[in-house]
């Protein structure tokens, strides 16, 4: 059985979510190979070769893969990994964009966002915003799977000694082109990998008030998240959204400030180890999942928290 993991990277560094996908791949079988496709991305292949559990790294370095356009990448993956037993990738926006295209070209189903590997052909995945867990079995020749990164530990980034093999497969579709990218700049830890997350909701009232959360985040080394209400109201950019349709986080500590706790938000954070809710409405559903709840006006409690930490 050979298992391919599609590396996610920005042509310079491997994304941590790939390490979680490697862990899931190792749970499904041996001979885990990593495919690194990009442009000027040899450094990423070297990093992937050091990851524990990886037996081989394939490097497809070409301008055609510079921006990870799925139209080109899917064709590459089908040619390089199409006869593998499994193809895994992290369930990030990149993996979600790419993998169903790969699966359809191979005429197999894709299994999205798995949280557990029961065996080489049986996986567990959440449905209905995490309100049910489905165990699914695939009889397809190739199992195409995306992995929920927060459900698997990251494979050790050092300790492996895989060989890197350059492959010369160029697939260019010329039906789609990259125009531009606008990334949110932040000094803080990445939301999905942070140990502590503090999130604000509609109760924050405006974008300026998110500065209150920053003071707490600075003290705790936390990432800042948001509910859909806060994003839709324009308080913060959408890449900060935690929930069914945003990011899934599972930090050690999640502090929900001014968030009511709708089903769709809980879907993104209810696997956090410890949940704290600060809300002035004691009936808010968030208190039903919070380990520690403080019924208080956030505009008093949050500055006090920042000061006393």
């Amino acid at each position, binding site marked *: 059985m050979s298992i391919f993991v599609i590396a996610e990277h920005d042509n310079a560094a491997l994304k941590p979510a790939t390490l979680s996908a490697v862990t899931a791949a190792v749970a499904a079988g041996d001979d885990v190979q990593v495919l690194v496709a990009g442009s000027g991305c040899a450094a990423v292949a070297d990093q992937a070769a050091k990851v524990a559990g990886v037996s081989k790294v394939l490097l497809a370095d070409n301008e055609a893969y510079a921006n990870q356009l799925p139209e080109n990448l899917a064709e590459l993956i089908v040619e390089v990994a199409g006869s593998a037993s499994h193809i895994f990738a992290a369930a990030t926006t990149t993996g979600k964009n790419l993998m169903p295209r790969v699966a359809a070209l191979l005429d197999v189903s894709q299994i999205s966002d798995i949280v557990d590997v029961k065996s080489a052909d049986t996986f567990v995945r959440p449905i209905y915003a*995490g309100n*049910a867990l489905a165990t699914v*079995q695939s009889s397809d020749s190739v199992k195409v799977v995306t992995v929920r990164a927060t459900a698997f530990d990251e494979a050790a980034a050092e300790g492996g000694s895989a060989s890197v093999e350059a492959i010369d497969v160029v697939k260019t579709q010329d039906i789609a082109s990259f125009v531009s990218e606008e990334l949110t700049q932040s000094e803080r830890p990445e939301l999905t990998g942070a140990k502590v997350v503090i999130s604000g909701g509609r109760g924050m009232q405006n974008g300026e008030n998110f500065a209150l959360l920053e003071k707490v985040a600075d003290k705790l080394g936390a990432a800042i998240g948001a509910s859909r209400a806060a994003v839709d109201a324009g308080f913060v950019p959408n*890449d900060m959204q935690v929930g069914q*349709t945003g990011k899934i986080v599972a930090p*050690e500590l999640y502090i929900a400030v001014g968030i009511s706790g709708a089903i769709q938000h809980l879907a993104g954070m209810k696997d956090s180890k410890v949940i704290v809710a600060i809300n002035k409405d004691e009936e808010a559903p968030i208190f039903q999942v919070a380990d520690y709840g403080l019924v208080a006006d956030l505009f008093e409690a949050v500055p006090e928290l920042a000061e006393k930490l």
Partner: protein
Amino acid sequence: MKILVAIKRVLDANVKVRVKADNSGVDLTNAKMAVNPFCEIAVEEAVRLKEKGQADEIVVVSIGEKSCQEQIRTCLALGADRGIHVETDTELQPLAVAKLLNKLVEKEEAGLVLLGKQSIDSDNNQAGQMLAALSGMPQGTFACKLEIADGKAKVTREIDGGEQTVELNLPAVVTTDLRLNEPRYASLPNIMKAKKKTIDTLTPDELGVDVSSGLKVLSVEPPPGRSAGIKVESVDELISKLKSEAKVI
């Protein structure tokens, strides 16, 4: 240009899900059903393109049991021109849905296909990408902005680190994110008018599509419960509990 919009009938987003006692699935008996929220956004976008004169006709497609026609009617009331219902009692996987849609795209010669980025029941986030693969079309997934000009679609996509813009040759597949637009409500006159619009019914057999799947659901279970914790009285007590009891700071 003709726009094909695929829509799905799902459990209403605000309904609390109950898993069946025999773990065979989710209990949908007498449950409130609705158009999947992302699909509503796709319909709205199609209607706006038509209002701007960039589309001539909007065809809305739904695949599933007979009751899907209610949701097709809803979309006709929102401004779609006609409906196609592919009737099947089998619960289909995204690959089968993509194959059926691919046949309809060919048949209708659609210039643009709009879908939601995911359905809120199965949470797969696959059908649009699969359709794009099968038809050889480019894909603009998780769209928060869509502009059509000169035979191309310029799509701004929500990605993990921010936003990305791509340009796609038409025909193309675009899947909608929440931020693309705010869907309108259907007015009573439009609901009345929608009753006169046509819905064609087809079957997977008539389209020549094998809808069998290599995927089998073995069981559906409720997730491990999370019990309510305690209420603290003050910020001091909160900090002390987090330090000494939970040991997370």
